[in-house]
């Protein structure tokens, strides 16, 4: 009776024969090309032989990619603390500036709405023909229409410097208005504000859908922006498949 051990022994013997006959294992480029269906018939046939001779590559080729992170207790789980630790290690390895968490952890953002809710402000902002209605306890925020470079083909490819907007010094709040191209295909948008000098990200919005007139607006409490400093307002678009960085506008607070 042929045993399982006999089968494994024979498999190993055949594999060694095949490897001697075929030579070196496939390269990463060849495997990825095969995976994309870019090889011709002869190359494809040879790749199949190589995958039989080197089954570890066959397994690596078909190993599915996880659609989500592992949960605690599952193999492959990594804690938020470990992610931070690995990030520090990565920063050292590639020479990124340390100590300035440019991005907060994914679920941490400056909830300026919490601040603004404390002063009970609700804003609806219109530009060029809209009516602005405010319900708040503070004085009216400074309206600022941000200048973004013209968007081409859904992405910003302009080489000109980002336009600069001057903000008056420290009002209670700024209402930043983002005019979008009418044909812009993104479903949702997001803004981030980054301090230019330090590179530190100060604040990020959750996803916002544009109004019917292709603009959206956000309100930033004045205390987030210091006089005499430059800030980048970065616009991101999302269409459900992923997020794309679209454009940058620079704002400077007067001294």
């Amino acid at each position, binding site marked *: *009776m*042929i*045993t*399982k051990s*006999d*089968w*494994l*022994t*024979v*498999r190993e*013997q*055949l*594999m060694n024969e095949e490897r001697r006959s075929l030579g070196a*294992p*496939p*390269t*990463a480029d060849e*495997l*990825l090309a095969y*995976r994309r269906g870019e090889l011709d018939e002869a190359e*494809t046939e040879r790749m*199949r*032989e190589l*995958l*039989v001779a080197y*089954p*570890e*590559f*066959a*397994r*690596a*080729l*078909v*190993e599915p*990619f*996880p*659609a989500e*992170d*592992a949960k605690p207790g599952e193999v*492959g789980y*990594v804690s938020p603390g470990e992610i931070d630790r*690995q*990030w520090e*290690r*990565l920063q050292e390895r*590639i020479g990124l*500036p340390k100590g300035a968490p*440019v*991005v907060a952890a*994914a679920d941490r953002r400056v909830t300026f709405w919490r601040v603004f809710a404390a002063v009970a402000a609700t804003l609806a902002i219109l530009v060029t023909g809209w009516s602005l209605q405010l319900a708040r306890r503070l004085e009216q925020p400074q309206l600022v229409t941000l200048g973004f470079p013209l968007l081409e083909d859904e*992405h910003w490819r302009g080489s000109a410097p980002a336009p600069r907007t001057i903000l008056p010094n420290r009002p209670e709040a700024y209402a930043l208005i983002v005019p979008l191209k009418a044909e812009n295909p993104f479903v949702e948008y997001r803004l*981030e504000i*980054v301090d230019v000098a330090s590179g530190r990200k100060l604040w990020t919005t959750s996803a916002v859908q544009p109004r019917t007139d292709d603009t959206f607006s956000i309100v930033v409490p004045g205390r987030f922006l210091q006089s005499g400093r430059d800030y*980048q307002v*970065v616009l991101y678009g999302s269409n459900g*498949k*992923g*997020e*794309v*960085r679209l454009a940058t506008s620079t704002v400077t607070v007067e001294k």
Partner: protein
Amino acid sequence: MNIVKNGGNEWFERMYRKYYGRVYRFFRRDGIQDSEASDLAQDTFVRLYEGMSQYRGEAEWGYLETIARRVLFNWIRKGKAVKRNAPTVDIDDPEVKLDPPAAEEPDYAEREESELHCKQLREAIRELPTGQRGCQELRMDGMSYEEIAQALGISLDAVRSRLRDAKKFLMERLGDGGTLTEDQE
């Protein structure tokens, strides 16, 4: 879209925080141990960072997956892969004895019989048509029908058909000993 010109570091960190868990999980699911998987995940993001200027706005996850698979293929090529079925022993396992008992005397008759079976099986498999042989060998490695289909770029039905034909041929050549029993498959 020029990531580098548009504040690449912010994009990079966002990619890292969004996908590190999945990339690490990918490497761990391939049976790689924790520290090695962490190193491979790091390698993946280093490659992402170094290639940022080439990113043209493709779907982020697919882009990163390609990099991670490349890292895995190169790691395997360096001979770092461990056989999936290789037995491992935990050195701290109290059951592991430092002085194992002497091996029993070999049963020469049993060994000769096994060598004969292996010879017959080897020759029989060599006679299989290429398509059947490939499926049969990958099946002997423990790959599922679906995995074999995906690896060889053929349909599931083709895999079933080839394995069925291979089994029939081997049984005819070797008798009942020519197939794995159900619990061996």
